[in-house]
């Protein structure tokens, strides 16, 4: 099966006006404007297969959203080749746009003063959705997102979470095979974030949709994405499974202990330090960091040396791995 998204040597450069501070700088910029090139995306190449959920990872300004916007045809690339669902996005026109949904976490298409159902009806007309299909899809999405009586309240009276759920409904009524989600859980509370994640997993299972998302929340990435594209300063640093990235970057593992033994023979932090770096210690809980390849052997030694009620071996928190990956580079982590 051909790839649903292909990007080859994709680059996007913006020209940004620069001026010196102060009044003199402002006046000079008026007569002799100066520009500098900002390379938002540089030479990025990747392919995405139908049905994949892929997350773009990267700090602010890394080029994630620019890539996403180029794939949806909002931006024209400076160079490179892009094919999405068989179309070149910026020349694909309406037939291409029927294949995609774009959800922007901080921009909404819902009409602010009207109940969300009015936007849904508008999209029904814009996407030319037959009445029966519209009813069926709306019922399915409302049930999956547990929207209940929200549809008849004006959008301005909805909570952020309810609004994002309605945004998803509005964007999915035409049942696109390809979803582009830019920060879909931005600003939502934990419950709402979780509801959106569960919905996306369920939706993808039911309809086989391909999902590309950007998010600052690592839980989104770990819960949803089978593959990550790590971008920094416009360059693609890593393309692959999250677990592989973690194994490559994280040279350590964490041994989490719940210690046994009464007050009389308490295990001390000093005693544990002989087995690895003690990250936290608050009897009876302790966390040790040890070299990745030594984790099984060290665990066995700990079990032999101390009364242990529980022991688990974990990777370091994903946020820390990602921070390390950006700080040291992916290759260096090997």
């Amino acid at each position, binding site marked *: 099966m051909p790839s649903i998204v292909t990007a080859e040597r994709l680059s996007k450069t913006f020209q940004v006006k620069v001026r010196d501070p102060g009044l003199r700088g402002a006046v000079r910029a008026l007569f002799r404007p100066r520009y500098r090139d900002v390379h938002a995306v540089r030479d990025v190449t990747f392919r995405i297969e139908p049905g994949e959920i892929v997350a773009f990872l990267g700090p602010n300004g890394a080029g994630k959203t620019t890539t996403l*916007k180029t794939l949806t*045809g909002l931006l024209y690339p400076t160079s490179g080749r892009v094919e999405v669902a068989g179309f070149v996005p910026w020349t694909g026109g309406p037939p291409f746009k*029927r294949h995609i949904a774009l959800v*922007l976490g901080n921009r909404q298409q819902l009409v602010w003063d009207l109940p969300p159902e009015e936007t849904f009806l508008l999209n*029904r*007309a*814009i996407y030319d959705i037959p009445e029966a299909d519209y009813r069926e899809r709306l019922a399915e999405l409302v049930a999956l997102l547990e929207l209940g009586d929200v549809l008849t309240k004006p959008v301005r009276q909805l909570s952020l979470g309810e609004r994002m759920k309605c945004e998803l409904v509005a964007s999915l009524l035409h049942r696109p095979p390809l979803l582009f989600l830019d920060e879909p859980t931005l600003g939502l509370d934990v419950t709402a974030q979780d509801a959106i994640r569960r919905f996306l997993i369920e939706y993808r299972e039911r309809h086989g949709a391909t999902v590309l998302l950007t998010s600052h929340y690592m839980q989104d990435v770990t819960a949803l994405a089978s593959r990550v594209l790590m971008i920094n300063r416009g360059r693609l640093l890593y393309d692959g499974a999250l677990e592989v990235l973690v194994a490559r970057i994280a040279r350590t593992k964490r041994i989490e202990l719940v210690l046994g033994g009464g007050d009389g023979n308490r295990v001390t932090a000093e005693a544990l330090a002989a087995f690895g770096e003690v990250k936290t210690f608050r009897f009876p809980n302790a966390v040790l960091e040890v070299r990745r390849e030594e984790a099984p052997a060290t665990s066995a030694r700990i079990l032999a040396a101390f009364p242990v009620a529980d022991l688990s071996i974990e990777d370091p928190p994903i946020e820390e791995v990602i921070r390390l990956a950006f700080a040291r580079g992916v290759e260096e982590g090997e």
Partner: protein
Amino acid sequence: MIKRYAALIRNAWLVDLQYRASIVLWLLWGVTEPAIALGIWWAIAGDGSVAGYARDDFARYFFAVMLINQLTIAWDSWYLDRWIREGDLNYRLARPLHPAHEAVAENIAYKARTASVILVVWLLVAAAWPAVRLPFDPGRWAITAVAVLLAAAMRFFISFTTGLLAFWTTRATAIMELHAGVSLFLAGRIAPLALLPPAVASVAGVLWFRSMLAFPVDLLTGAVHGPAAVLRGLGGQIAWLGVWIVAYRIAWTRGIRKYGAVGG
């Protein structure tokens, strides 16, 4: 496409119905300017006339301005400017409908609601005040309708194209404000063009300003004499409409390549 327009117009009206006060304010704004201009010219004309315009002529002229200005005015540059600068164009570009269609539908919705109210007001005033009555002349009304349609289309493209300048500058609305200021005089909003100095009036005629408003107003009030003058006026409208459509095409195709799609 008809279904899409119906849905867009329906939504525009639904939003309007949420804000009754704003509808009244917009209507007052539309009525006040010609009413003040009429008051001034009414006082100046006294019992005589100014450049052939007596009090009754001024009354008919400004009632026609009131109606036709509402039927042809376009606010799109303000919307476009915001869509582009704040990134609200993003989801509009992701839909299989050119954003201009949404703008046209908004125009139809706005014009239908304000112009219908002004028409009712005109009819009520005409019932009591013979000066503002127009002679029954379906032929002239039909030609006026064509001229109004051309003027509305042209003003839409002027406004939309000027709004597209937001792809390049943050001051697109200032350019539109400047255009509105000039058109106050050159389009005949503040006085019939016949009252302007001949040189200024000819500039209004050579450029697109007369076609925007004064020509359809003159058609409706019977100030355009003879088929040749009517055809010249309609020809000017068509030519300038063509120019603005070309300008729009250039601004759109070049601007969209420059779009930064700010925000999410």
